[in-house]
């Protein structure tokens, strides 16, 4: 690899780990090695989650010309406000100390298991994400498949939450959430298939490595900078928004209609767990998007490689999250039929087309010279023309709704 991989900053976290491990007796070293990795991931992303919540609140406020939370400071020091940055910790203390209410007729076990499962599985997805050049918790051959498999279990948890609450709102909302998650899992996975096709592997590490080149030193070969990659990225973002129940696809939790959906009967720490899992899911999907489309931990230019890879990754991740927050602050919630129609009549066909587009890209890989231009033009046309045509038919349906009141 490039000399940057030898820089001290690049190696620092790993060396720290090795240094810590060496103090332990031989048989425990293997265990400690992995334990430290897990703890590190948990700590980093736990903190990240905490600050995502405050960032979201502040950003949303600013997007709507408000100030956002800015009060909480440190305890015992009056007047020190720290721009409200300690808000998440105050929230944590609040939720932890709240009463845990379980409905009398609820299925106690499932009611308890649901938040546990949802957090456990959303954390499991972090195992295959390459956070840095040498920082990947588990190197799997079928990493992408693993990611989606682990993500699939959250649907189960949502069902369990909805059903065990013995509440009609909860159950209805859970079914709605399931319908949404299942619908959008398809475009999500389909939008990733072109990457697999072009990179020829399911391993996240290898996918990042294939993006690690530059044209004349500053044009990175990230997949998002190809026609099919851009289309895939957009589909991925839409599907990821829906998969993580974020606005404008936050129907499962629509407070105004479903009184927070499957979470109606959850309070206190269990509610916090769901909340956490949701942000973990968002973070994991954003990280996956970064890994697959935005070059992972690769620097955008050659001369910026001195900045350690994990920082680049974090930077891109934060960028993604900020974008998600921005979208949440902008768009309105969709109706359920619009939601499913968007998935099945627009995203899925487009994603399928995009798979074909990527296949064309692979087949025309040897085209050179002016043919390169043709290749780009064809690839763009294959995705843009259907987008325009299907988009027209899709928006044609979004006319103002005519209500007929009960007579």
């Amino acid at each position, binding site marked *: 690899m490039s000399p940057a991989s030898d820089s001290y900053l690049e190696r620092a976290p790993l060396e720290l780990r090795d240094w810590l491990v060496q103090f332990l007796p031989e048989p425990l070293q293997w265990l400690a090695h992995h334990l430290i990795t897990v703890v590190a991931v948990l700590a980093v992303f736990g903190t990240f989650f905490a600050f995502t919540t405050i960032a979201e609140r502040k950003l949303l406020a*600013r*997007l*709507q*010309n408000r100030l956002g939370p800015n009060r909480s400071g440190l305890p015992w020091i009056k007047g020190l406000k720290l721009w409200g940055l300690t808000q998440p910790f105050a929230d944590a203390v609040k939720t932890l100390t709240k009463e845990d209410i379980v409905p009398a007729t609820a299925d106690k076990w499932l009611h308890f298991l649901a938040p546990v499962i949802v957090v456990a599985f959303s954390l499991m997805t972090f195992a295959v994400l390459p956070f840095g050049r040498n920082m990947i918790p588990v190197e799997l051959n079928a990493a992408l498949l693993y990611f989606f498999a682990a993500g699939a279990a959250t649907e189960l948890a949502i069902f369990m939450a909805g059903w065990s609450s013995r509440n009609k709102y909860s159950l209805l909302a859970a079914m709605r959430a399931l319908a949404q998650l299942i619908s959008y899992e398809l475009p999500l996975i389909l939008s990733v298939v072109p990457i697999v096709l072009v990179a020829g592997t399911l391993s996240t590490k290898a996918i990042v490595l294939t993006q690690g080149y530059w044209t004349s030193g500053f044009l990175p070969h990230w997949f998002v900078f190809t026609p099919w990659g851009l289309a895939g990225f957009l589909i991925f973002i839409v599907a990821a928004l829906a998969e993580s129940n974020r606005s404008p696809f936050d129907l499962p939790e629509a407070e105004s209609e479903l009184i927070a959906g499957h979470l109606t009967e959850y309070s206190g720490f269990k509610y916090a767990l769901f909340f956490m899992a949701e942000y973990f899911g968002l973070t994991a999907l954003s990280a996956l998007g970064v890994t697959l489309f935005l070059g992972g931990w690769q620097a955008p230019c050659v001369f910026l490689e001195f900045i350690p890879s994990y920082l680049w990754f974090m930077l891109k991740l934060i960028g993604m999250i900020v974008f998600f927050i921005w979208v949440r602050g*902008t*768009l309105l919630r969709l109706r359920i039929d619009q939601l499913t129609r968007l998935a099945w009549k627009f995203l899925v066909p487009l994603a399928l087309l995009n798979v074909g587009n990527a296949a064309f890209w692979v087949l025309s890989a040897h085209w050179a010279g002016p043919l390169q231009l043709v290749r780009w033009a064809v690839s763009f046309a294959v995705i843009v023309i259907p987008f325009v045509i*299907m*988009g027209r038919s*899709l928006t044609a349906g979004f006319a103002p709704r005519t209500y007929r009141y009960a007579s």
Partner: protein
Amino acid sequence: MLGSGIIKGLAVTAKNFVGSYYDPARMTTVEYPEQPTVLPENYRNFPFLVSENATDPMGTLRCVACQICEKECPPQCIIIEKSKDKKPDANGKMQLYPAVFGIDTSVCMSCQICVEVCPFDAIKMDKVFEIAATDRFLDLYLNREQLAKPNTYYHQIHPEEAAEVDGRLTADRKAAEEKAKATAAAKAAAPVAAPKPADSAVAPKPASPAVKPQDEPRRLVSPKPGEGGSPLGEGGPAKSS
């Protein structure tokens, strides 16, 4: 094309984001306890009782315990008990007064009907909103002492409305005095002419002139000629309607 609207929307919010840092005029919110907000004139919250004098609020309540508001209140949150004795009011006339006047603000829905029906301008809407309490039952039940607020406070919170009310009241007072004189003179003079009762019935009505034509038909329905002079009698048409 699909998506152009989304981009436009994103641009709008991005503008908001940037603008919120250097353009305070954009901000829709204020930092509340530090920066007080100016409430609009017509803002209302829960009712209070108007007393003429701040030094002796209980003694100078305008309320005469007529119990109209108690009967009209839709959620039935007003409790009134009449006094056994009478006290002179601001005009020096002997009136009943509320021995007990309570409002359960946990029930009150701020509809202002009590204000509308009060013939004495004795109950008005307050603007206080920092009324959090620790006891859900006792603290939210306001009694006579808590409700009574001086007329100056009324002027403070609803200046235009209070000025109009005061003007009306003083006009009433003047008219009452003139009428007292007139009746005294009439006792000495010949019996009353035909149009006289109408005049005398209208005169004590404390409504503004604009209200008068509206009141005419009511009078046709329940004509009570010869009545007048007594402020208590004013309750008559209101009750009968």
